């Protein structure tokens, strides 16, 4: 779960890292008032969870409160790489002497965290790492010891950062561990003309698995840009909205990902990712179907279940029950395979729903679902009747 810049800024501040004074608003009027409180001259920054804001025109300097209002009016509602700007942050400008880069990232291969630091901050760190790898220090952190003052001093020295950054490096590690973050990044970390070390911009990714012990996230919540994703999340479904026309339901993350690929391989585009897990109960099936059917882009639905722990006859019972509670408006292709597949298919045949058809293989079912999505409504009726 990625945080917005203003949320990351708040976390840094709570952990004693210096940040510029700033306020957040969702209206041009609010921007004018914030700018006035902040001393007039402000930087207006679009709050979106993607990089490249500056190049897209999402970060601008405003000379006074009236200019801040005008600038906020331009930025609010702007689309940056598919993300709509709903809020802007107004921050006091900082007189920069030098810019650095620091982060703690998860090193999946090593199974631990890595400190990455460079005296060449402010720009794309991947580019610096690619062109001048010697300018970027990468130091593994022992999870049992963490970043002590001595460790921070080692990181700062390796990267050529001034000694005043040691305290920030220690506090940033506290943000990572106490907030259950998977990534904390400050870019740029700046030294001001007055000699202060300030986190000017930051990125924090929190670990969704740690929600149970990070109670305050409850109020913050996960923000879904998409209405269908929000509806699915409210029902506890593992759903991701995609751009296509074939709705997908399957059991197991890997199998569902694979189903998307196989549908795409048949020339259609998957409309979503939806993993209903091993149990595939009638209620979950009904909830999943209703979310998918409420997506106007969906032309056909592919239910792909492998009966392992839950055998296919139980899954078929679940589908039949779901069909009683959900008004099916689009053709449904079901592929049941694995334990008790024959019995499961017989149960679905017995229900004889006119919009439901079965295929015995995943590839065959994907082809059928793709063809149905491309056919018009009369053709659909003919195929499902055959």
């Amino acid at each position, binding site marked *: 779960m990625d945080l917005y810049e203003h949320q990351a800024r708040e976390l840094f501040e709570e952990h004693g890292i210096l940040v510029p004074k700033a306020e957040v608003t969702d209206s041009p009027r609010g921007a004018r008032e914030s700018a006035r409180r902040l001393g007039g001259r402000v930087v207006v920054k679009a709050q979106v969870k993607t990089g490249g804001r500056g190049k897209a025109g999402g970060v601008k300097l405003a000379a006074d409160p009236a200019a801040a209002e005008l600038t906020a009016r331009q930025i609010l509602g702007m689309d940056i790489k598919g993300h709509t700007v709903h809020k802007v942050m107004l921050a006091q400008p900082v007189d920069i002497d030098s810019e650095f880069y620091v982060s703690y990232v998860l090193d*999946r291969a090593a199974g631990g965290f890595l400190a990455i630091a460079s005296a060449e901050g402010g720009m794309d760190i991947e580019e610096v790492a690619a062109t001048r790898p010697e300018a970027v220090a990468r130091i593994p952190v022992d999870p049992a010891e963490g970043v002590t003052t001595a460790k921070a001093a080692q990181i700062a020295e390796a990267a050529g950062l001034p000694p005043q950054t040691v305290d920030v490096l220690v506090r940033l590690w506290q943000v990572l561990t106490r907030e259950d973050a998977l990534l904390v990044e400050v870019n740029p970390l700046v030294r001001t003309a007055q000699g202060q070390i300030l986190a000017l911009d930051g990125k924090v990714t929190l670990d969704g698995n740690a929600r149970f012990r990070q109670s305050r996230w409850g109020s913050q919540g996960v923000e879904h840009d998409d209405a269908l994703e929000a509806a699915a999340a409210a029902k506890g479904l593992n759903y*991701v909205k995609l751009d296509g026309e074939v709705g997908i339901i399957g059991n197991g993350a890997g199998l569902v990902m694979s189903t998307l690929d196989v549908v795409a391989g048949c020339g259609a585009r998957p409309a979503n990712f939806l993993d209903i897990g091993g149990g595939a109960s009638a209620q979950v099936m009904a909830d999943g179907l209703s979310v998918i059917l409420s997506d106007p882009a969906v032309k056909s639905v592919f239910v792909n279940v492998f009966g392992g722990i839950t055998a296919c006859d139980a899954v078929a019972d679940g589908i039949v029950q779901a069909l009683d509670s959900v008004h099916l408006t689009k053709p449904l292709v079901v592929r049941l395979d694995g334990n008790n597949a024959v019995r499961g298919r017989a149960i679905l045949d017995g229900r004889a729903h006119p919009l439901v058809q079965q295929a015995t293989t995943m590839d065959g079912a994907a082809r059928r679902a793709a063809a149905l999505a491309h056919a018009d409504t009369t053709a659909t009726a003919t195929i499902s009747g055959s």
Partner: protein
Amino acid sequence: MAIYLTKESKVLVQGMTGAEGMKHTRRMLAAGTDVVGGVNPRKAGRSIDFDDRAIPVFGSVREGIEATGADVSVVFVPPAFAKAAVIEAADAGIGLAVVITEGIPVHDAVAFHAYARARGTRIIGPNCPGLITPGQSNAGIIPADITKPGRIGLVSKSGTLTYQLMYELRDIGFSTCVGIGGDPVIGTTHIDCLAAFQDDPDTDLIVLIGEIGGDAEERAAAYVRDHVTKPVVAYIAGFTAPEGKTMGHAGAIVSGSSGTAQAKKEALEAAGVGVGSTPTETAQLVLARLEERT
């Protein structure tokens, strides 16, 4: 012989008395697993009846090992207690801890991973279906009845794709199938399993299942190129996954240009690994490679 798990393995179940633990202990016993005990300090000294067998409950992993000689632990305890459970198992000197639990915070996984490694305990998982050596033993939640013993080794990030391939190749059969889990930090990697299967005289061919996120498959490809002489066939899921969206598994996410399915496929193919475009095509590739050998 198989890898990591044989009929000689003596299995403890941490969290046996919970709903999932009970359900899967019954299934493991039915699959022939030598389950020698459960662990729950609040129910120590009792025993739980599973059909015709009474399985004792111990107060700690250490007591369980001392009483039974257990060398494998399967962990079903909830996410909040999983770190303590794995650390307890490592402290007691268990050889293999199979962590089924889904939803463990990454910082906990990082901590117990480092702790277990320092003590010589192998971890499989977390967030995995465990492993099965068909006809001998089943440690975890893989359905035992979808395949039979044979000479294919399988290592996979995904549970249901493992089942799908086990089922498609059920007439050939498997030496051992290892579900390593879809979390960002896992104890046993594709490479660990490749190395073990390469050394296993009962394995003729290795199936590797990967998915988007991280670069484990790319590293596995380099390992195959340099160290594996047995044929390897792979399947990668997630070609259509958009950047920045987590697809079910916590680790399944494309970040920027890294972790894409295409890059993994290309790396594997460059190492001489056949990569199927669907699970069924992958199974067909396996059959073709096996025929080439005979």
